[in-house]
């Protein structure tokens, strides 16, 4: 806020500067703690970079797009292309699935349910967010996969002419595909998008909505002309937060996806795919010395990508929630 230099405009602030010894100490301690947020990000970047430097140096840019991962001593070629593409594909599937579901749920909670029920529904959505990813993974393998397999079979049978739903070899079955992994990721990001969207919906200007209703607008018109335009940027922020989470998801995807270094460009029902985070987990246990550095580099890649996505998402969500700023 631009302060007017006009002397009459100056308002006194209470306790502008710490003056006593104890106060100075208190303010220094809190500032130091706050600066630790930067220090932590810097430390993560530093250590990951230091440990992945040997791999980055030896692999060059092909690390990001090549598709060979061989830890035989002497060969030591580590390229992450299919995994990076797979991560993006799964995150995209997850976000495309989760967004309409989440926005619909948030809409029902904020505008259609009576007060008491909407509180219960909010609690249930929060509970979904609190489920550990290893449990989602367990459920994904033993409960969700058989169901999803049936759906995948039907999709392939009736829509198989469409390249997206075709598979190379029908005998491979329909488990462990990016389709299933995308749904698992969707289950994990639905609560995130829902809670951001619900918060934004609940803080919308009631006068606008009541005014539109009083003018005779229907529910659909209110959604289309009032709710969506005023809250779209916030929803996009929530979706980006979900995207960040989807890219970093590790254990649940590790269980439900067949990781493969043969790139799977778009055949979402094919039982082969990739995810950088799960790849780290799957290779970690028996990694050789050089492979260790390559896995660190893979971690660095996810870290930078998610950091950028989360920064953008945070800025968007903050801007669309002005009431959060004091």
């Amino acid at each position, binding site marked *: 806020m631009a302060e007017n230099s006009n002397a009459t405009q100056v308002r006194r602030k209470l306790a502008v500067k710490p003056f006593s010894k104890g106060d100075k100490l208190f303010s220094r301690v809190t500032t130091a703690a706050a600066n630790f947020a930067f220090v932590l990000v810097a430390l993560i970047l530093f250590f990951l970079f230091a440990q992945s430097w040997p791999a980055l140096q030896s692999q060059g840019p092909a690390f990001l797009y090549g598709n060979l991962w061989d830890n035989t001593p002497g060969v030591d070629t580590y390229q992450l292309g299919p995994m990076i593409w797979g991560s993006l594909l799964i995150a995209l599937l997850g976000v495309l699935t989760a967004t309409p579901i989440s926005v619909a749920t948030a809409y029902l909670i904020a505008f259609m349910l009576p007060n008491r029920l909407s509180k219960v529904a909010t609690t249930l959505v929060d509970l979904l967010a609190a489920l550990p990813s290893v449990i989602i993974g367990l459920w994904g393998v033993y409960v969700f996969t058989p169901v999803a397999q049936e759906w995948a079979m039907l999709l392939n049978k009736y829509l198989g002419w469409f390249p997206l739903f075709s598979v190379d070899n029908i005998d491979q079955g329909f488990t462990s595909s990016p389709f299933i992994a995308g749904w698992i990721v969707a289950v994990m990001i639905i609560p995130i998008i829902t809670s951001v969207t619900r918060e934004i919906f609940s803080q919308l200007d009631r006068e606008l909505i009541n005014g539109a209703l009083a003018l005779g607008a229907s529910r659909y018109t209110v959604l289309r002309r009032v709710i969506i335009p005023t809250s779209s940027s916030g929803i996009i922020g929530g979706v980006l937060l979900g995207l*960040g989470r989807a890219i970093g998801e590790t254990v649940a995807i590790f269980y439900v996806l067949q990781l493969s270094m043969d790139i799977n460009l778009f055949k979402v029902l094919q039982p082969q795919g990739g995810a950088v985070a799960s790849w780290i987990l799957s290779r970690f246990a028996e990694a050789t010395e050089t492979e260790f550095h390559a896995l660190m580099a893979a971690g660095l890649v996810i870290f930078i990508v998610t950091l950028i996505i989360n920064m953008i998402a945070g800025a968007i969500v903050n801007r669309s929630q002005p009431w959060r700023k004091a």
Partner: protein
Amino acid sequence: MIAQPRPKVQPWARPNREKTLWVSVASVLPALLGVGLAFALQLPFAVALIVFFLPIQLVAAIAVGIRFAKIKGAKDAVLTVFVVFFTALVFVLLLSVLESVFTRGLPTVSAHFLYQNNRYISTTTSLEYGGVGHAILGSLLVVLITTILAVPLGLLIGVYLTTSQSKMRNLVRSFTQALSGLPSVVSGLFVLAAMSYFGFSERTGFTGALALFPLMLPTVARVAEESLRLVPQDLRWAALGLGAPNYRAFFQVILPAAKTGIMTAVLLGIARIIGETAPLLLTMSTTNGTNLNPFSGALTTLPTFIYGFLNAGYSSSIARSWGAAVVMLLLVAIIFISARVITRKPSGKGKGK
């Protein structure tokens, strides 16, 4: 329509019997038809749902909508059907997870399963022996260490964000937010990278706790900030006006007023990390015995227990995983419910309005 209390008596709203009747018919009939057709044609549930139920439901809703409000009503009907369908899907997914964990896990859970450790137990030992006692203790130990590390720091960041006038505040806030999206596997790799940088190789409970620290910190900081913000500024000003220095105003006035909110921050932080698997797999060795020393030797937590026995792939080991999942869920539920109970107290964090 909006989530706010409406007067009980609404003299302007004339009850429309005919409309109520048709709306209820349109909500019940399609479900009956869908189920009937599915049984009559011996179709799998999934097909019946998409091929019969949804279209019939849509047509019925649109018909009723047109009957009462022309095209406007039809659009509203489509909107309502999809919104309800999607929300129902979310709750079906949630219930399916809870239901499967309890039905598959409860047969494994018994008294000895809760307190025995897994020493001398292999992946194929029958379920009469062994349990998750060591994993429960391990989880509690690791979470306790992380809590001791992360809570004071997160609290101080929350204090900084609510009291500082500095321009850095927004930057600190956005960094904290960005950290809250830190992928858990990266957090594990970070600690591992630091360890290997300093040539430190023993993977113990403490290194696992360190790997959970960056995940817990932002949650605590954010919730603490929100609950501190709900303390009326007047209280702080009154304390300062009486001559209290900032720090005493904080410790004697603001902190007691925000006590319950801060408890919530701690609980939500714990809920965030208690189920983490990937960072612990990278930074902690696992064991089948009980180990209460976080600074040396291997340590198993519930999530790594589930992971290990699931990977083994035998039916008895998978049953152990499901049993541990039940214990895990109960732990999460205890934390979750206590957080709810605390926030519900009148002195606690109200809904920001």
